[in-house]
């Protein structure tokens, strides 16, 4: 099991009673001085995480104070140079929204070289409201993701001669990515998914890591089972693995842990999007929209927003407590979902200060990590059952 430090680099200093914050909160609420301090503080904390032996995960969002990391490749480039050992997982490049897969291939190859092969290269379709910031036609986001990844990988792998590409979404001539990645043939690919079973299937077939975020364990299990099943059926292509992101806070006492957990919960309650930004037409399949029209969808989100810390912990969305208690929670979740390989920890959010952030990750690194590091890598289902027989 590998553990990853993660924060969305929030800018929480805006009026918290604003009814909607994603997409339309005017940027007059951003004070550049405060923002500069926060950027530098967050980068410092990534360097501390590196020194503590944790890996680093980055993501990006746009037009929202919940995430100042609007250009994750820039952050990855800084960390490639300023950290020593951590693997840097960019999860991920919103390749459909970026609209220039070759540029992404170049950026990622550069980060991989500067970090001497520490890049894990993720790709995401992007959450629904990202289509408004990027103005991507929502009916194409899925296809653009897969076409984009294929083009990036082709650009990395085709090392002997330039090639032309005339596809559905992009046309380029003489593709010849300089530099190529440090890792051969290219960094491990990661992709996220939250409900569609097609995504874990495709990831498994290709030996990519499949990740999901903040889902209750009973929703995670079938996705992870799908991944394992197809991993075996496709002859175990090698690489890959499963990743899950909960909120994580570790403290010396339950009351301190709850204080940290409450601050992390800001992420579930504060960033608000108007309902139509959460479901642009064509983002979800028709069948899901039929259900949504009958208003039978979305109980999870509502539940997570208003839920108690105990409920969040029971679901595995939050993992918090004293070190031994946190180890227990991780192992319980591991068993409930059939095992996983990467614990992506949102261990900072909202107003959590520097001291509390570092305290939590230090305690995790020193007292929790050693107890979970050797949890076996996920074994494909058929192999597991064969071993049991």
């Amino acid at each position, binding site marked *: 099991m590998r553990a990853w430090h993660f924060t969305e680099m929030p800018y929480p200093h805006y009026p918290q009673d604003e009814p909607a914050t994603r997409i339309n909160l005017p940027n007059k609420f951003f004070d550049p001085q405060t923002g500069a301090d926060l950027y530098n503080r967050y980068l410092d904390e990534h360097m501390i995480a590196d020194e503590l032996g944790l890996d680093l995960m980055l993501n990006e969002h746009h037009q929202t104070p919940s995430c100042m990391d609007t250009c994750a490749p820039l952050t990855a480039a800084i960390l490639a140079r300023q950290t020593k050992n951590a693997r840097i997982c960019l999860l991920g490049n919103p390749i459909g929204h970026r609209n220039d897969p070759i540029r992404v291939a170049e950026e990622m190859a550069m980060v991989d070289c500067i970090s001497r092969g520490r890049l894990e290269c993720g790709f995401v379709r992007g959450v629904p409201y990202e289509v408004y910031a990027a103005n991507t036609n929502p009916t194409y986001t899925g296809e653009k993701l897969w076409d984009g990844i294929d083009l990036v990988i082709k650009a990395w792998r085709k090392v002997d001669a330039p090639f032309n590409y005339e596809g559905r979404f992009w046309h380029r001539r003489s593709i010849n990515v300089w530099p190529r990645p440090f890792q051969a043939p290219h960094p491990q690919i990661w992709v996220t998914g939250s409900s569609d079973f097609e995504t874990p299937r495709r990831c498994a077939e290709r030996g990519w890591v499949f990740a999901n975020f903040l889902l209750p364990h009973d929703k995670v299990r079938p996705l992870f089972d799908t991944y394992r099943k197809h991993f075996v059926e496709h002859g175990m292509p090698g690489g890959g693995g499963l990743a899950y992101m909960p909120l994580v806070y570790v403290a010396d006492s339950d009351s301190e842990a709850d204080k940290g957990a409450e601050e992390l919960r800001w992420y579930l309650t504060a960033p608000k999007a108007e309902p139509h930004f959460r479901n642009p037409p064509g983002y979800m399949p028709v069948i899901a929209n039929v259900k949504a*029209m009958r208003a039978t969808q979305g109980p999870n989100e509502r539940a997570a927003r208003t839920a108690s810390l105990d409920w969040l912990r029971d679901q595995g969305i939050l993992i918090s407590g004293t070190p031994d208690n946190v180890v227990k929670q991780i192992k319980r979740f591991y068993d409930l979902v059939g095992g996983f390989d990467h614990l992506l920890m949102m261990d900072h959010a909202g107003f959590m200060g520097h001291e509390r952030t570092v305290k939590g990750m230090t305690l995790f690194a020193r007292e929790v990590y050693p107890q979970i590091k050797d949890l076996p890598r996920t074994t494909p289902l058929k192999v597991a059952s064969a071993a049991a027989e």
Partner: protein
Amino acid sequence: MAGEELVLVGGVELEIARRGSGKPLLLLPGEDMLEADSAFVAGLAKTFEVIVASPPGFGRSARPEWLTQPADHAYLLLSLLKKLNLARVPAIGCSFGGWIAAEMAVIDNDAFSRLALIGPYGVKLGGPTESDFADIYQLGPTKSAALKFRAPETMKRDFTKLGDDELGRIARNLESFARFGWEPYLHNPKLKHLLYRVTAPTLIIWGEKDGIAGTDYARGFAKLIAGARVATVADAAHYPHIEQPDTVLRQITEFLGDAK
């Protein structure tokens, strides 16, 4: 829509419904597909055989992946007219269907004897920071409905009372409208330069309370087609033929009557 049939054109199945009898008239519905069983079409059906054709991606019409813009719809629908042996028919295009009808007239100016466009999208008249159309995707369905309809509450459909098929079609209509209208937003940048090709007498009908685009847009659109007139409809928004069917029927009958 009831009584529909499917016609194969260019490998794409298109849904049509026929209403009434008489001289044929093509009707291209709007993106919300409210026309087929409306009082407006029932009124037209007293004098015409109204052929309501669901554009590709709407109703039960297929949506091939290669189809990305209303000019593509236009080719298929022109082929549909050929297949149905309809030449120089009067046509009514509503909203998104009006945009398609305009594209058809640009490609083949013999297709229509008369062209009535009710609240058509399709051209951009303002500059980059002047939106010709209210941004329904930014506003969301509730605020958009208030711009589209004079009395949006009367147009509300009770989704709990509709079957999966019907709800699925409504969801797919919304999806298709986004596919073809998201960017460039509800217009084809080339169309305004090509509308000079339209030679059929053209009437543009516009609801005075339309919050999606105003009568200035209607007049700007009309200027692009030689001889085109604008008729406005009081107490109606973006779908005047749905909200004030009698008024629009009168306007249309008079306009089509001129043809005789």
